[in-house]
């Protein structure tokens, strides 16, 4: 169950992109609060600014104006080193196209965030095994991504996102490249992780039924603005 403690506070955030002479405002003066342990779905059509907002909250991008406070620190004020540390220590990410490195085995892919965090080798192998068991991919650890199905790849990507035990998991269209049954399995897994680890999950999706079924709260974006947000009934999530 989500607590009432604010984990992320986006305050009048705007993000502009320059395309030649034209300035495109992908996120427009948006404010949003996300509580610790919450499963928030950012819902919207293509180009609504939901992925841009996710990237800003994940520390992959900086707002043109406004502030994003995570655990009291403003991401907009961090330098690239500080943002990298934030991504390494606080954030886990899952992408639509899985983004496992094709030249590495599944195990090596999952180990990558631990290498970047300079975790000891013995501790690394223990945590990799644990993360792969959690997504039920233990027996496939030596396989390369090309030898795995789409669902397995996404579960592998989920294991990689979890291995550093982050406080927040960002998922950008995690079911976008999967069939509906596999997509549902992934979301069930996300829910299970949220329930067992108490992790905050922020998911971008354009599939309203899935969002309504699995998220605690839905924020609807259109043209870079937050046009609606509502909490879901707990019973509807089973």
């Amino acid at each position, binding site marked *: 169950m989500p607590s009432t403690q604010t984990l992320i506070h986006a305050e009048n955030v705007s993000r502009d992109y320059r395309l030649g002479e034209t300035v495109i405002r992908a996120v427009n003066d948006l404010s949003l609060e996300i509580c610790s342990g919450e499963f928030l779905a950012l819902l919207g059509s293509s180009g609504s600014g939901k992925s841009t907002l996710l990237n800003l909250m994940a520390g992959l991008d900086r707002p043109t104006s406004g502030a994003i406070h995570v655990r009291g620190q403003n991401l907009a004020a961090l330098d690239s080193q500080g943002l*990298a*540390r934030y*991504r390494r220590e606080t954030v886990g*990410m899952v*992408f639509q196209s899985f983004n496992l490195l094709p030249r590495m085995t599944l195990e090596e892919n999952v180990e990558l965030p631990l*290498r*970047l965090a*300079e975790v000891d080798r013995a501790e690394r192998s223990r945590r990799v095994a644990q993360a792969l068991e959690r997504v039920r991919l233990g027996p496939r650890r030596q396989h390369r991504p090309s030898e795995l199905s789409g669902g397995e790849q996404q579960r592998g990507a989920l294991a990689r996102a979890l291995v550093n035990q982050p406080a927040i998991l960002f998922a950008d269209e995690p079911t976008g490249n999967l069939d509906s049954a596999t997509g549902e399995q992934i979301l069930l897994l996300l829910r299970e992780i949220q329930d067992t680890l108490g992790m905050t999950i922020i998911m971008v999706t354009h599939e309203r039924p899935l969002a309504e079924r699995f998220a605690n709260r839905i924020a609807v974006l259109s043209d870079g603005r937050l046009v609606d947000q509502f909490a879901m009934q707990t019973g509807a999530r089973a």
Partner: protein
Amino acid sequence: MKGRDLGELAVRNLREAILRNSLTTLGVAVGVASLVAMLSLGVGLQTLASSRLTKSGLFDAVFVTSRRDFRAPGGDGPPRKSSAPPEKFKPLDESARQQFADLPNVVDVYPQIRFLTDVRYQSNSYSTNVLGVPESSRSASAFDSITGKYFSSPTAEEAILQADFAKELSPQTANLVGQEITLRYAERRAVSSDEIAKEKDIDKQLDEMMSGGISIVSREKKLRIAGIIESDPSAGIGGFGGGRVFLPLRVAEQLHPAQANDVQDFVRGGGSGKPTYAALTIRVKNPKNVLQVEDAIKKLGFNAFSLLDAARSLRLVFTVFDLFLGLFGSLALTVASLGIINTLVMAILERRREIGVLKALGATDGDVRSLFFAEAGAMGLFGGIFGVALGWLIGQALTWGTTIYLRRQELPGVKISYVPWWLAASAIAFAVAVSLIAGLYPAGRAARLNPVEALRYE
């Protein structure tokens, strides 16, 4: 990221595009090989020249003359004009020789013994110069290609002939080895006043008195021909060479031959009957000791001269030579470094998405930069090691080819290429340094990639 992890990832990445990276590494190897081959040639030639010059005995020797007799080396010009009051000149005699021998770092002190002689062989007579050669000449390059053998001992009654002179004795010079020749020479004898007084022949007595206490007696000495050499083992300094028959120095000394300076001593009134030397050669342990010994001898009141300055000039010439060889060798490595830049820039384009993923997972700009640096450095390291081996092989091939050519010209083979450990180590370090410099731009570009754009890249 830790260094070990960085290295593992770099090697893994290099292995993935094995063909392209191997070709780039090969480019570095060829560049390093050309550099190593060029410099090994320079070092080899320098070593060869140094060893030949050391063997010539010119650079570890100090040549000493009495101040009274001193002329500029190689010339018989007028004596130096000096406004200084005349000092008491020390004779270059046996006691001076002993003084020199007692100096530190002196290995050997020997006189130059050269005298005119008549050589008799098969009832024919030939006039020529005889030169005594010290035992240390055994290693001189002139004796490398001797027909026959060097003197069997320092006191062997043997002679080595110069090839042109040997041809005068017999056209079949090789047959001369082992034959006997007879030297007819003038022996210098000290004569005491008692001996002069006992002399009944008054004319002879007067002659002896006028000679200032020395007598010249005609003597003969039979010697066995031990070998025949092409060049003069003592040529090079101050016209001290010029011998055509060579004897062991100790044998030559025992003959007490009359030399040109005996007459000089007499003319200048110094003919006391004690033998003096025209010049002494002092051999020192190491060319480094030459200056110190030279100074010590000058302080003792003698003239001393060495060829160390010439050796210094030679080193300068070789340093410039090495510099140019190094510059030419580096050109190939510069071209190879362009290959590294090209390979890494291509890798950035191909691995754009991977860079985005690494950054999303928490890699800093520095981590990404280090990864590309490590890949460039690894290519430099492997290319450097392979290049040193290749350069060494090229040097060996050059030595091999040169030796074959020289043998066809009936000359002894020489090692013209030499790869000392410092050259190998510097070449590898240089290859890594050049590769890292080549990696600067690609690594910087990769580090600056925006993660969102990189992740969007298909």
